[in-house]
């Protein structure tokens, strides 16, 4: 038994190394005083971060990404909230079928969505840019939001809403005093999650953005110039830290004050 445990422990170490070592190289080289990503490290520097902060094209790309991310996360969470409410509260006709239909974008390859959207959008004679990117991100994020919200709302006790009505609240009061506060952690989690998904989405943005670059596109563009590589690494390191914080926050919020005693991990992030 002892031996077997040792092997499993070793396996776990290898597994985590496999998962995180490549990613960890980014921050390491972002502090390295050299243009090329090769060992041995040359010396500590913050100049790549300085370069990153002073790049105006990067700022524009960042702002584009934030704009797209905020709008996409709000819309997809709103759409998913209504759908999740319907699925958990009412007997939806053809439940399995419509559930599958809503979650389908999940499994359709992104590139297929991208191609069909670009055909549709240009076919309608519309200009490519951030608008179609945002729309495609709403489409792409909604299933994720659905999973987060449905898993929360399935544990939602319908009696709570009935109890509120029984105690004198009308539908509006019941929503604001009971439904909304109970769903709030999941709503916030859904917002954060969809923002992160939109923020680092590449394929849809690549096809639909035209001149307005989002951050991932900017980074991809910079990789062609070896001199620009280090400050992309610095940017990458910052994004890793920021996204991890947001995702952890989302996960923590989703389970916060969960109505059931057992924290649900089904349909997780």
């Amino acid at each position, binding site marked *: 038994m002892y031996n077997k445990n040792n092997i499993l422990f070793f396996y776990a170490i290898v597994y985590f190394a496999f998962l995180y070592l490549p990613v960890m190289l980014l921050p390491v080289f972002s502090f390295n005083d050299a243009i090329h990503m090769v060992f041995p490290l040359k010396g500590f520097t913050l100049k790549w971060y300085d370069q990153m902060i002073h790049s105006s094209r990067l700022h524009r790309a960042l702002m584009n990404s934030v704009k797209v991310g905020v709008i996409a996360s709000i819309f997809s969470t709103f759409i998913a909230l209504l759908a999740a409410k319907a699925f958990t509260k009412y007997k939806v006709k053809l439940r399995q079928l419509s559930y599958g239909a809503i979650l389908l974008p999940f499994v359709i390859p992104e590139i297929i969505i991208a191609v069909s959207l670009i055909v549709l959008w240009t076919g309608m004679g519309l200009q490519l840019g951030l608008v179609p990117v945002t729309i495609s991100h709403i489409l792409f994020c909604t299933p994720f939001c659905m999973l987060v919200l449905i898993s929360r709302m399935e544990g939602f006790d319908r*009696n*709570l809403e*009935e*109890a509120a009505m*029984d*105690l*004198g*609240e009308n539908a509006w009061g019941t929503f604001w*005093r009971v439904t909304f*506060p109970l769903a709030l952690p999941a709503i916030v989690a859904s917002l954060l999650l969809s923002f992160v998904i939109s923020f680092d989405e590449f394929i849809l943005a690549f096809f639909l953005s035209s001149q307005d670059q989002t951050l991932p596109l900017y980074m991809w563009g910079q990789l062609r110039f070896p001199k620009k590589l280090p400050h992309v690494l610095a940017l990458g390191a910052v994004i890793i830290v920021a996204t991890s914080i947001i995702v952890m926050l989302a996960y923590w919020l989703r389970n916060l004050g969960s109505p059931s005693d057992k924290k649900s991990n089904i349909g997780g992030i």
Partner: protein
Amino acid sequence: MSDKEFIKIKNVSKNFEDVVAVDNINVDIARGEFFSLLGPSGCGKTTLLRILAGFEYPSSGSVFIDNLDVTDITPNLRPTNMVFQNYAIFPHINVKRNIEFGLRKEKLSKDELDERVQNALKMVQLEGYEDRFSNQLSGGQRQRIALARALVKQPKVLLLDEPLGALDKKLREEMQLELRNLQRSVGITFIFVTHDQEEAMTMSDRVAVMNKGKILQISPPRDLYDNPKNLFVGDFIGQINFLDTQIVKIEGNIAKVLINKLGEHELVTNNNNLSQNESIVCAIRPETIIISKTNEKISDICIKGVIANTSFYGNMTYIYVKIEGLSKPIMVSTSDVHDGLSHNSDCYLNIHLKDIRIIQKN
């Protein structure tokens, strides 16, 4: 309408698609009564309660509370409050805010509000629990908070949907007693839904036994036990023996009956729907039968049998006695088991005619 018709359920039916959950029910419930709806799961008792609360709209019929037709009134405007089966304590707010949840519309001052909450907590003996959250309470405490939250609204009717179902046996028995005392002291009409006959019997002024959407009998507990009006009620409440019987003759309130293997006897009945040659059932409670080792006739009927089985319940023992010619053994209960009454031994059963009830089959 008088206090006897404080709540009036009139021709109420409820269909869910093609399933009839509640089938043309008529009941009057008196002011201050502890009224129970008793029946197996799926009998429509909870649906009927939800119709009273306003969560279900009846397919037909109407509901009156205190002379007011509430059929079209939404739950938030009805003079009823409900204690839910799982208590439905709001998990995101503490006990105090749970209890004052329903008082928002009453526009009370802070002192009045605090006083009402304190009184409610005192009533359910949970003073000092104001700041707790639902997940910091035991099942019994949640149940009390749900009760306090409903009663603080001072409703005309309190509806209880199997509120003791989730508690363990000891606590349940304690709460039965407490609930009954509480109901007496506040004087509010309680309508209590349960599938547990013991619960219904120990607490209620009257019990309505339901099955398949219909009310089969409404009686005080004692009467329900002593004079079941039909097979289902007799069988559902306590233990009972049914014997196939034929009516030979009817003279006034005396029915001459031929009970299978027990012979021809004259029984007193106040049922005037009986007819000659009708095939009926005679019901005998197991505790009314006297079992003995010796063949002595100390009552109207004495019959020989063989003990097929015994089961011990602490305060009493059930003895199953096989009678030749009867397919089912007769069940006898006694607190006094002598040595002779063992498996496969002969015994004699004495039955008084006054303990035999006539039940029509229909």
